[in-house]
């Protein structure tokens, strides 16, 4: 279902596996409005921010982060985990405070 309010850009996921260690850097496209910014009309722009990000490989959750309005626009999340092998798929899914969700997948090579 097309959500016209959801940001259009896909999650950019950079994955680098070196033996047992997999390093990940995800860039999420999102305005991360704090709810404290005043627009040109003098009104506060409503808070709109990614509240949770979950990274998983198959059924294994490898990282979870809860964000707030204090995380920068277009949030970057970096993390590292062990035990992945080539051919597995890393999935990153986010949810924002308005209930929008988005996910992206990348193969671990």
């Amino acid at each position, binding site marked *: 279902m097309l959500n016209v309010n959801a940001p259009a850009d896909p999650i950019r996921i950079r994955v680098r596996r070196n033996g047992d*260690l997999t390093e990940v*850097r995800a860039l999420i496209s999102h305005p991360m409005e*704090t*709810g*404290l*910014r*005043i627009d040109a009309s003098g009104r*506060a722009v*409503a*808070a709109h*921010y990614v*509240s*949770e990000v979950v990274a998983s490989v198959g059924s*294994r*959750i*490898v*990282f*979870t*982060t*809860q*964000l*707030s*309005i*204090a*995380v*920068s*626009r277009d*949030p*970057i*999340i*970096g*993390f*590292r*985990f*062990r*035990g992945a092998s080539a051919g597995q798929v890393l999935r990153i899914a986010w949810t924002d*405070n308005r209930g929008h969700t988005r996910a992206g997948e990348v193969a671990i090579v």
Partner: protein
Amino acid sequence: MPACLHLRRRRALQGLLALASAGSSARSAAAPSPEAAADALRHTIDTMGKPVRADAAIVLDVPSVAEDGALVPLSVASSLPGTREIVILVDVNPHPVAARFVIPEGTDAFAATRIRMARSGTVLAAVRTNAGLFFTSRSAQVGVGGC
């Protein structure tokens, strides 16, 4: 000077209410005074547990000077055994808790992100392990406030 007005506390804290029940619900002013911010931070940490400073075991990497308070990069790594979660707090922000990272088994106790700081202040990294709550902190000067 940050253009921060109208704290939308409840909506902004949906996901973090458990951790950030700090501060009074009656607070409706703009960016907190230093005293109010310190109180909010202290209260937040009190609800998390009794923290022990562990500067050697928790490496919090944040620039000592960040030109843009809306884009302060940081990384945190904990060598404390059994690290289960890492929480980033900022003492000068309207809400102290910036982010929370949950570290499952098999994942390194490491996280990197970019945060906003309302003005120059202190970034804290609190680490929860099986043995308790530990923390370290770094000062960061900010050129332009990031709210």
